[in-house]
């Protein structure tokens, strides 16, 4: 596959770390786009690496190509013509957009037009509810994955395992990032078909979920790395209607719960 990553300056370190873990699981051509629109020169500067990883306990290596492109000046707003010749033919194209999405911009529009799937992380946004509203307008155009949504998966599975005790749930408490908490509450509300109050406690990652005071016990949640969450999204090809419904519900909440 081709994995395009749009990585503004402040996300470069995190993106590089994730990419290293990702390549181990998804050998692919990764195109790292580093936009520098404020640069006074109009230029594209690139380098290509072949990164190989030894499989645990085996002699063989899995190799992945990484192409890094610095898009300076005006080139940062028209990335498609640079990227298109570099796509691997006939294979899916994933677009990982780091940070808030510049809705309505040419760069987003062009890259969405090239990709089969857009991968975002709502935790990187300043206002998740507002951005969910804008993002939901793209659902008909491109399949979307949200890593914040993926992070809730073990917790959703754990709460699903509490059925039917949670069938009439009225309140959910989530200690974790706001985006994760909103998506979790929206999921519960849309699946159960009735309103559920969210009690949110900020934390860097999801630490606790309680439904009507009953604690959910996920399995294997602590084993997941950022690379694993992104890898999981790269294994999905179609639209995710359950996520879309949850994101639309978050978008409908003008103020956070």
């Amino acid at each position, binding site marked *: 596959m081709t994995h395009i990553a749009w990585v503004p300056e402040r996300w470069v370190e995190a993106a590089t770390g994730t990419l290293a873990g990702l390549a*181990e*699981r998804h*050998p692919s051509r990764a195109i790292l786009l580093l936009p520098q629109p404020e640069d006074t020169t109009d230029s594209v500067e690139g380098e290509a690496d072949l990164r190989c*990883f030894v*499989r*645990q*306990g*085996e002699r*063989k290596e*899995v190799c992945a190509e990484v192409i890094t492109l610095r898009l300076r000046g005006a080139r940062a707003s028209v990335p498609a013509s640079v990227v298109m010749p570099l796509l691997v033919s006939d294979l899916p194209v994933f677009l990982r957009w780091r940070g808030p999405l510049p809705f309505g911009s040419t760069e987003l529009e062009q890259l969405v037009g090239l990709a089969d799937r857009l991968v975002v992380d709502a935790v990187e946004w300043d206002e998740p509810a507002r951005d969910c509203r804008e993002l939901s307008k793209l659902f008909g155009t491109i399949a979307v994955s949200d890593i914040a949504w993926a992070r809730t*998966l*073990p917790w*959703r*599975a754990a*709460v*699903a*395992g509490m*059925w*039917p005790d*949670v*069938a009439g749930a009225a309140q959910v408490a989530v200690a974790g990032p706001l985006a994760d908490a909103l998506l979790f509450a929206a999921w*519960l509300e849309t*699946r*159960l*078909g009735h309103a559920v109050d969210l009690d949110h406690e900020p934390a860097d990652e999801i630490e606790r979920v309680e439904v009507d005071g009953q604690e959910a*016990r*996920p*399995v*294997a949640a602590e*084993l997941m790395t950022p690379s694993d969450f992104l890898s*999981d999204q790269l294994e*999905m090809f179609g639209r*995710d*209607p*359950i*996520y879309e419904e949850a994101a639309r519900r978050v978008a409908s909440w003008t103020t956070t719960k």
Partner: protein
Amino acid sequence: MTEVVAAPNPLLEGLTMRRPPEPCAIAIFGASGDLTQRKIMPALYALAMRGLLPARFGIVGVSRTEMSTEDFVERMRQAVMVNCRDEFRHDVWERLAEGLHYVSADFGVEGGEAALVDALNEIDETRGTAGNRVYYLAVPPAAFDDIVTALGRRRTASGWTRVIVEKPFGHDLASAEALNELVTTYFHEDEIFRIDHYLGKETVQNMLVLRFANGIFEPIWNRQFIDHVQITVAESLGVEGRADFYEHAGAIRDVVQNHMLQLVALTAMEPPIDFAAESVRNEKVKVLKAIHTPGPKHVVRGQYGSGYIEGEEVPGYRQEHGVAADSNTETYVAAKLFVDNWRWADTPFYLRTGKRLPRRETTIAIQFKRAPHPLFEVDRESLRPNVLLIHIQPDEGVSLAIGAKVPGQGTSIRTVHMDFLYGGAFRIGIPEAYERLILDCLLGDATLFTRADEVEEQWAIVDAMVAPWKRDRPRFPNYAAGSWGPPAADDLLHRDGRSWRRH
């Protein structure tokens, strides 16, 4: 009484995680044995590591050996540390070990099962396993009767029961039928899970994906386009401490009856209507029923003499520890089978398996017919037919041999390979077969297990193959360790104008 129908769980919709197994307790018979330590416990640990076991779960080890639960837990911990593919994590182990118990029981004496019943009832109470039971019979067939009878008579009124039966399932058709009759006296067919661990291998399952998820293969997967099929299960090891079993089984019962006939069935089967257990197994049984009984000239047996493996001198089979000095047990079998149906009529399936062959290798080679018209003026030998090679182990993957022009003046053709290797494409580890099979059993999915009629058809074929052996005495040994088998195996193909794949 009105049956209460549970409302479907809306929270499961769209969850990409596989549904978790229901709470249950697993009783492993033969808990002090090699299989439990090498395969079963490491598989359970690997499943626990990935959060694939139910939250409410318990394990009872059962054998005749006197041992405390503490000693058993420690022994299993050591086994997991040595044999598991994952790094050992204390927190995962501690969680698994909390539900681990050991019971010393002799099912040969009246009431010998009482201690096990008590232990399982206790697990139901303390761990909430709701009477759901998996009985894993990792014991020799001689012990089946007592265990199955005792379990059948005392099966719980609440919860479900599943029985995993390890191979060998009988030693001929009559004994397999007797075993089936015994097990089905107490358990329904959908409660019986007969293991052939080959079916748990990723690459064996990939055979189904390769054939039925790719549109290009199925139209040419027949007698019109395929010249013949070769299936090789080669081992470089000798009997490795299994002489007692192997002397009675030989290669035909150890490998051909189960693994090889499964590979034949998966290669030759028609597309099932879906991937449900009964649909897949129905199609496999049809293949086994269609296999023409091979005549004596179509079966070759062999036994290895001394020789060299990887530069090291190794003894002959008759010199192995525990083997009779005049043993006539076969360590090699080659056979030519025909599947008598529209798809495969007159297309031979050549099988060969043996011990002390030059290297360990399991492959299915689909050899296609040559191009119909020799367009290029080249040596016929350099224009080899296309071969689709499915590597089951090691170097798991798929390879297609095609002819390509050698760069330069003139037209010179060489065979090159288009390869897909699991190891080169995916870095995630390939799960052990036992992990997949145990999890499937916990989920009640019998697709990758052998059904009663399937195992009986397999034995019927094997019985027909060995019947002539009772009448003649073989001249053993007839191949040297480190060679590819007896000359008669080569003749089997040469007579048809073919030869075994080059290695």
